[in-house]
């Protein structure tokens, strides 16, 4: 069930919210309701993966329970190992087999497992909880609360990657506490703006990007197509995921829960380090706290810094997908981050405008690699961008307008969420505008099959 589908917006969400607020004074009851609703939401894609999801949660909780009873750290390590093994099995097994196949030079059988949707997101949340238990920074939650923390439908499929200690305490808060109407209104506004961004902008950008990434499987694209496709995808992936995050944050807010921000106008960044503080912020935070800092971070010498950076960003790439394009994308970002750091350490000048330009071109070009189906296609795209192919046809008016609007919005000084926080005030006019926009968005999502979010595949 996609957020931007009528079945979700006209049936699932109203029913869930109505029951949730009916159970507002019964904390246990409304938590159980949200668990059931979230499992229905998840099972709508493929009911076969519900036992896997619940199995990972129950296993994690059981191992934590043994740890808290016995004081042994072994169950926690076993649980981390088991969770990561499940992720590796579904996501990376065939990739590893393909590497082995290339090394051995003989064909090997593939498992061909279907990737359970959201597995990368919920596994990371479980692992973060387990690591916090090891660090003594997490308590033993009731099974119901831990389950709800993991399966809560607004973030289950594609984040934001929330942490137990920022969400579980909120489960006890009365959703009808002061400000409920404002939270629901602002949540609804954010949900509607997310739908609009996804349907009108991200999906339009996909129509420009997709043909280029199909064409590079066969030939070097023209310069014009390579630039349009790469820029369109870089903007699409941002708006697609930012829209999803806005919808998730809005949905949570409608239930009185606050999710962390996930994007903060990353294409305005004037350095790569700043970019990663603004792009997929909850993943960056996870990687910083659970990979980069434990590996030594930046405080234990240059060699250790380089190791930590390349390992973290390599893992970041691998998290996005089992393929060399993702790994190289992550490692290229690591190289860029290292250069940024050395530049800063050497006190070399970097005017903000030049810093922005370099960051923008670097991140956009690397999204071309990220989207390419394989390295050969990525190479074709790269030389197409360098002008090795034909010049190509001029862009259509529609392409120019879509790219202009998207670039303008991506570089705007405020996010949609900021704008709504600042300027959504309770007047008759804004109420009418929100109702009309929500109505139109509901109509538009009823036309044809809604397109999946890009990050669902991760």
């Amino acid at each position, binding site marked *: 069930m996609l957020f931007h589908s009528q079945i979700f917006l006209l049936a699932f969400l109203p029913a869930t919210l109505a029951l949730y607020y009916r159970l507002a004074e019964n904390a246990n009851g409304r938590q159980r309701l949200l668990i059931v609703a979230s499992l229905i939401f998840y099972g709508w894609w493929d009911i076969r993966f519900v036992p896997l999801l619940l199995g990972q949660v129950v296993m994690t909780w059981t191992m934590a329970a043994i740890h808290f009873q016995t004081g042994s750290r072994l169950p926690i390590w076993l649980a981390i190992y088991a969770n990561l093994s499940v992720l590796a099995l579904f996501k990376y097994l065939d990739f590893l087999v393909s590497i082995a196949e290339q090394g051995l030079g003989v064909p090997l059988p593939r498992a061909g497992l279907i990737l359970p949707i959201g597995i990368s997101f919920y596994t990371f949340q479980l692992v973060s909880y387990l690591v916090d238990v090891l660090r003594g920074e997490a308590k033993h939650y009731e099974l119901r609360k831990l389950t709800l923390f993991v399966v809560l439908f607004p973030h289950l499929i594609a984040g934001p990657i929330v942490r137990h200690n920022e969400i579980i305490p909120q489960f006890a808060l009365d959703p009808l506490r002061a400000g409920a*109407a404002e939270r629901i*209104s602002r949540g609804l506004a954010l949900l509607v703006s997310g739908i609009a961004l996804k349907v009108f902008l991200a999906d339009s950008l996909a129509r420009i990007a997709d043909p280029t990434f199909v064409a590079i499987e066969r030939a070097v694209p023209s310069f014009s197509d390579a630039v349009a496709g790469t820029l369109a995808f870089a903007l699409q992936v941002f708006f697609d995921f930012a829209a999803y995050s806005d919808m998730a944050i809005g949905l949570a807010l409608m239930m009185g829960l606050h999710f962390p921000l996930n994007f903060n106008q990353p294409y305005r960044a004037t350095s790569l380090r700043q970019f990663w503080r603004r792009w997929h912020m909850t993943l960056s935070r996870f990687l910083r706290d659970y990979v980069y800092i434990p590996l030594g971070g930046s405080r234990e010498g240059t060699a250790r810094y380089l190791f930590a950076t390349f390992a973290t960003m390599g893992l970041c790439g691998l998290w996005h997908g089992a393929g060399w394009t993702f790994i190289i994308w992550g490692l290229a970002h690591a190289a860029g981050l290292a250069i940024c750091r050395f530049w800063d350490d050497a006190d070399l000048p970097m005017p903000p405008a030049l810093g922005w330009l370099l960051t923008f071109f670097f991140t956009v070009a690397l999204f071309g690699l990220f989207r390419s189906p394989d390295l050969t296609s990525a190479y074709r795209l790269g030389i197409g961008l360098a002008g090795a192919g034909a010049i190509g046809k001029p862009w259509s008016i529609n392409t120019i307008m879509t790219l202009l609007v998207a670039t303008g919005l991506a570089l705007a000084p405020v996010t949609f969420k900021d704008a709504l926080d600042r300027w959504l005030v*309770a007047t008759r006019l804004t*109420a009418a505008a*929100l*109702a*009309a926009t929500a*109505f139109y968005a*509901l109509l538009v999502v009823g*036309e044809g099959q809604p397109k999946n979010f890009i990050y669902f595949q991760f």
Partner: protein
Amino acid sequence: MLGWEQFLKMVLLGLCGLLAFAYGFIVLINPYGHLPWHVLGAHAIMDTNQRFQYPAIARSQLFNSVVIGTSSARLLDPDRLDAALGGRFANLSMNAARAWEQYRLARLFLAHQPRLKTLLMALDWVWCDERADLDRITVRGFPEWLYDENPWNDWIYLLNPPTIEFAGRLALYRLGLKPARLAANGFSVFVPPESAYDAVKAEKYIWQGRSREINAVIPAYAPSAEDLQSWRFPAIAWLDELLRETPKNTRRILAFMPSHIASQPAPGSREAAREQTCKAHIWEIGKRHDAEIIDFRIYSSITTRDVHFWDPLHYRLPIAHRIVDGIARAVATRLDDPGGDWAYVH
């Protein structure tokens, strides 16, 4: 300024009101004609997306004969077919229809017209497409829910901008403010008026800069056992099923529509051999179900002359009349056309 509670109430009431109004209007007007009522007058075809509009005709039971095909059959005039073959014809040929879409529409017609007099399947290359089972529909989309017999899903795909637009047009039609887009029998002349025909332009469209000379391959390609094993014609099974489910007393006609020789495989080529193999399968199925089989997709006095076509696939209106008359004569005489327009197979 309002309080937030008042604001939220206004938003929810406004949203629910708009949704209820839009949904009520759509259901009342019934733009796809699939709900069991017609308020303020009869149904009319108010849009040219035939995939959404033709199910209403198929369900209407107003017609006891039907021609189904792609745009290569859209110019076959139902009134002329009525006169030539008897019965009351609807022409439900859809632009760029895939074989699957034609099959679904024919099934729907059969399900609602148990006393079907004539089923005329106007065939073209899509029935021989090896990807027919993989590319079942086009980018135009295909509303499966209008073609099934599940009454529940009739209610859940209605809330969207095109449906509101169709409902609006239909309401205007019923108020006498707008004409119907297509005739009640599905027919429309989609090509420009005959007076606008430009032979030079047509020639350009037909040959698209290629040489006008079609060289037959000599010796003709002889399909190997491997070819015959690997060539796939997945749509033919649907045709088989369709003919099997057609009532016994129905006249079944399979007619390959003419296309200009520029769009046909060169004689003797591998593609021509593949097409012949496909046709042979269709002939075999047609014979098994006692269908009349007529082939206009041959080198003929129709298909070899540029002035008969607007483009390689679409013939002119007088040719459409010639095809209708030809079908009637073929069915009556059970012979090839002496002038060579068609081959009578069975």
